[in-house]
């Protein structure tokens, strides 16, 4: 079991770290969009898409970067009591409290999947069945088959009117990765309880 946990931790952390390392350059993407916005506004006509695009970039930045920030130990804790505890006590508490975090992320994911199904034109309350049909449609009928399942896709209520499913898919993926990362944190806490020495922060 210990071996299995270690493999899971290594794979998850490595993948999420890689995603986070890419996302961290998102700061320049946001900066670039906003600078283009100032330039176009000053010298040409202002662009329709800049503010919304910057908002999409920001969401991708913090949601996909989230797991890496957990690895780096960036999330604040109230350490009135916690700060003075021994490593094993911390691990015990963390192993329990991370379940709350996972519950929160699970609900977030659930809502996200529903919202993404909606953004692809599913107006009912069965997002999972919808995605099931979507996949089934794709497998049996290719793109056309999937298209038949899709309804009217949601567009942002702005003049630019971008489709919202891409950003919602990114959000769902990011929340899923957060959930994976908290599982990895749980695994690390279990390993710590069993005596392993695993650093609490890794960059």
């Amino acid at each position, binding site marked *: 079991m210990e071996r299995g946990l270690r493999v899971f931790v290594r794979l998850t952390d490595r993948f999420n770290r890689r995603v986070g390392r890419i996302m961290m350059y998102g700061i320049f993407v946001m900066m670039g969009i906003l600078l283009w916005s100032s330039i176009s*506004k000053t010298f040409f006509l202002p662009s329709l898409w800049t503010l919304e695009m*910057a908002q999409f970039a920001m969401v991708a930045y*913090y949601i996909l970067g989230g797991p890496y920030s957990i690895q780096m130990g960036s999330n604040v804790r109230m350490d009135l009591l916690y700060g003075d505890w021994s490593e094993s006590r911390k691990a015990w508490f963390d192993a329990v409290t991370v379940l709350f975090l996972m519950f929160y992320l699970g609900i977030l994911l659930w809502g996200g999947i529903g919202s993404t199904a909606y953004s692809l034109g599913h107006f009912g309350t069965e997002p999972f069945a919808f995605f099931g049909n979507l996949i089934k449609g794709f497998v049996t009928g290719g793109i056309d088959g999937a298209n038949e399942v899709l309804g009217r896709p949601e567009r942002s209520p702005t003049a630019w009117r971008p489709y919202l499913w891409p950003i919602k898919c990114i959000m769902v993926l990011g929340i899923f990765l957060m959930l994976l990362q908290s599982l990895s944190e749980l695994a690390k806490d279990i390993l710590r309880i069993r005596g392993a020495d695993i650093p609490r922060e890794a960059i």
Partner: protein
Amino acid sequence: MSYELIAILMFSTMMLMLMTGQRVFGAIGFVAVIAALLLWGDRGGYDLGFSAAMKLMKWYPLLTLPMFIFMGYVLSESKIADDLYKMFHVWMGGVHGGLAIGTIGLMVLISAMNGLSVAGMAIGATIALPELLKRGYDKRMVTGVIQAGSSLGILVPPSVVLVLYAMIARQPVGQLWLAGVVPGLMMAAMFIIYIWARCRLNPELGPVLPPEERNIPLSEKLALLRAGVLPLVIFAAMMIPFVNGWTSLVESSAIGALAAFLAAVLKGRMTREVFEVSVRSTLGISCMFMWIILAALAFGAVFDGLGAVKAIENLFTEKMHLSPWMILILMQLSFIVMGTFLDDTAMLVIVAPLYVPLVQALGFDLIWYGILYTITTQIAYMTPPFGYNLFLMRAMAPPEIGLRDIYASITPFVAVMVVALVVVMIFPEIALWLPDLVYNK
């Protein structure tokens, strides 16, 4: 169960969960979604968490957050503040406690270049602190100086806290920022007076710099003043287009970040390592803030859904028959108490939506209240058990400074801040004079 009871239950559960030392956003988010599920269940209770993410996405001023954080890291990591520190060092060295006073000056300039206290803490702890200790300054005093001085970052514009407040209170950011200028400078002056007076009475707390270190030719002394130009340039690059309406707030924050970045490149300080640390830390800190705001928005929506605002308003005005000023003072006190426990972002997103409408209903000016709120937050930053500046100090301080020193160091400065808070409460003009002058409200 009455809604008031549910609200109290939610709040106390969250406090209890925070005590376990778990990640703050996890605790807040958990209480939010579990309350939504219990209250609304299959009637969409499970959507509320994600719908907060969509709300956050549309909250455009949040784009300034990563920009200001990046700016702060570039300034502190690239050590372009070193020259500034040298300037204060030489110019103020002859005074009792002069280096500590100079550090406050440094902090004011750093505050004018970024919107949080992180940069000031990092610069203070890495540049000023070792120097001050080497010169025999009292460790408790200088630890306090750096924590208090860096907290000015959220009061002196630009300020991220005031941006978030502006969004919640629906008040103009420009006016709020201007309202922070005079109180910020006033508070800095009060710190300086305190340091000077204490060092006059107790010279060993802050010894005068030996003459050979400060007797350098006037021409060199003047040359050092040039270091002060850089912050002015960065501040101007960001603020002038904004105040003139050429660029919007979020665009200006991007210009500020670019200006800081270019300054570091031009000074040859943007090494590979500085770049790496700045970019990486910006992601870490931004994610921390964003996830807390995300969770707190869901919590706030449930709280709102319960009608907690009306309940509190009712409690204060109808049941307790308190006068507006009494309520205001009680609110500030409760803010300070909650601030010791709660993270400031969470406090802003959860508590402010309850209090701000009340403040407005009582007939107070919301710009002025924004400044009161910010000073309270500054205090919360420094008071145990939960305070960003405390955490950062603990992480950055050299080994000879213990936890006890850090806790003890803040007492006089918190006292000064409370005095400043009271002064601004009694004389609202201190905050409102400048915005009134500029916007002719």
